[in-house]
């Protein structure tokens, strides 16, 4: 693509205000690849699992409000989070395809002097990186991860509902696998690859959430995974912080590193682990770093 693009970066509440080291790795990777982004005063996307369940109209209106901020600059949004991506994409599509809803939401936005036009697109960062090209990304790799077995976990809101988000295959996504393979690592097959991490139901009740997580972990460990690579902060938090609970729930012990795709890329581009804030992971990365000659 010859056109010089700049995206509005949408890190989201969880990454920005809870696990900012993910944002650090993403910004470093974008800089290295020459993908341009700029910030905006976005509010909460808002959460497709939480806020949409409370009041669909409020969810549409808040999502539309965020979209107007990017529309004002005529720039597409790149989201670092599955949840924010799904919300902004779904709101954009729902309002663009439903004149009645669009009118209703614009009546609400009129109170703050804004109009939703539907003039921009919303992208997940995996789409942006995959459009950039796994082969082109390979050229930046200085630390080869050959031999590393990766359990890829896209999470649910990256590729579903597929008719609307149109990112990847809804049940057999390939883009994350191809991006992981660009670092030399091997994406493995494991039986519960498409199982939800359990974060959603965890808002209601812990036991089923931890059981889903345990089933996911067991299946990946059985298949020989060294690490998980994820692309959603809700999945990341569920998988990084709840290993002990999931173990207790299922009479297991889980100690498996959880890496964000942008962290794997940053390391493979030769960036210093200390600068990435990897020490803030709850599932320790010490062994992983040592084994891979990064410490």
């Amino acid at each position, binding site marked *: 693509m010859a056109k010089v693009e700049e995206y509005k970066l949408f890190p989201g509440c969880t990454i920005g205000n809870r696990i900012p080291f993910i944002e650090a790795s993403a910004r470093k990777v974008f800089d290295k690849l020459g993908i341009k982004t700029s910030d905006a005063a976005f*509010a909460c996307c808002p959460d497709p699992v939480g*806020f949409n369940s*409370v009041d*669909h109209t409020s969810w549409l209106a*808040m999502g539309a409000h965020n979209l107007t901020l990017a529309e004002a600059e005529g720039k597409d949004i790149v989201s670092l989070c599955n949840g924010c991506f799904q919300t902004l994409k779904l709101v954009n599509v729902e309002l663009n395809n439903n004149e009645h809803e669009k009118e209703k939401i614009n009546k609400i936005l009129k109170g703050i002097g804004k109009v939703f036009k539907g003039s921009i697109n919303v992208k997940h960062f995996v789409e942006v990186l995959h459009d950039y090209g796994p082969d082109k990304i390979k050229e930046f790799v200085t630390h080869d991860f050959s031999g590393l077995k990766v359990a890829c976990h896209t999470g649910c809101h990256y590729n579903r509902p597929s008719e609307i988000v149109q990112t990847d295959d809804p049940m057999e996504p390939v883009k994350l696998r191809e991006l992981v393979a660009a670092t030399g690592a091997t994406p493995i097959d494991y039986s519960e690859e498409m199982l939800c991490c359990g974060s959603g139901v965890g808002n209601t009740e812990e036991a089923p959430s931890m059981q889903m997580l345990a089933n996911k972990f067991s299946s990946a460990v059985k298949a020989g995974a060294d690490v998980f690579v994820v692309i959603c902060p809700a999945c990341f938090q569920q998988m990084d912080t709840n290993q002990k609970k999931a173990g207790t729930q299922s009479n297991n012990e889980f100690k498996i590193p959880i890496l964000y795709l942008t962290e794997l890329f940053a390391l493979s581009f030769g960036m210093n682990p200390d600068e990435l804030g990897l020490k803030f992971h709850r599932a320790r990365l010490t062994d992983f770093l040592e084994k891979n000659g990064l410490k």
Partner: protein
Amino acid sequence: MVVIDYEFKKKVMDAHIHDALKYCYQCNRCTDVCPVADLAPNRYNPRNLILNSFLGLRENIFGGDDSFNIWGCTMCDTCDEICPQKIELTGVFTVLKNISIAKGEGPEYYTIQASAIYDSGKAIPPQPAIERRREQLGLPKVEAPNIEEVKTILNETKLNKIINK
């Protein structure tokens, strides 16, 4: 006696943008693939929810002892993908959840989060410790959202009434 609530029935039918809900023939694929129904088959059953929704049997859904029958949904959208009739089940469940919240029957997590969004514009408001960490990581400050605009929007949608603000 079975009571059909036509107003409720209209609400779920109208909310469904493809109007495909009425074509459900109860094949059970949704429940087959549901990861929560797999673990808690007696407490969560998406096929059953859809049946009671399109028949307008409101009392079979709301007001029970265990709201897990609605809130057990983990929002994975797997049922949406598998449904041979292309029913967006998750969209229907969102209508049910909105009703459940308005009746004060939803888990408190949801209203607490909505309250944080109403007050600060963010589901997770900024905290000094994280702001320092951002600085250490060389990250720019998070640009603060326009809270007045957020409040104006959410008062207009009457979210303030739903969450008692």
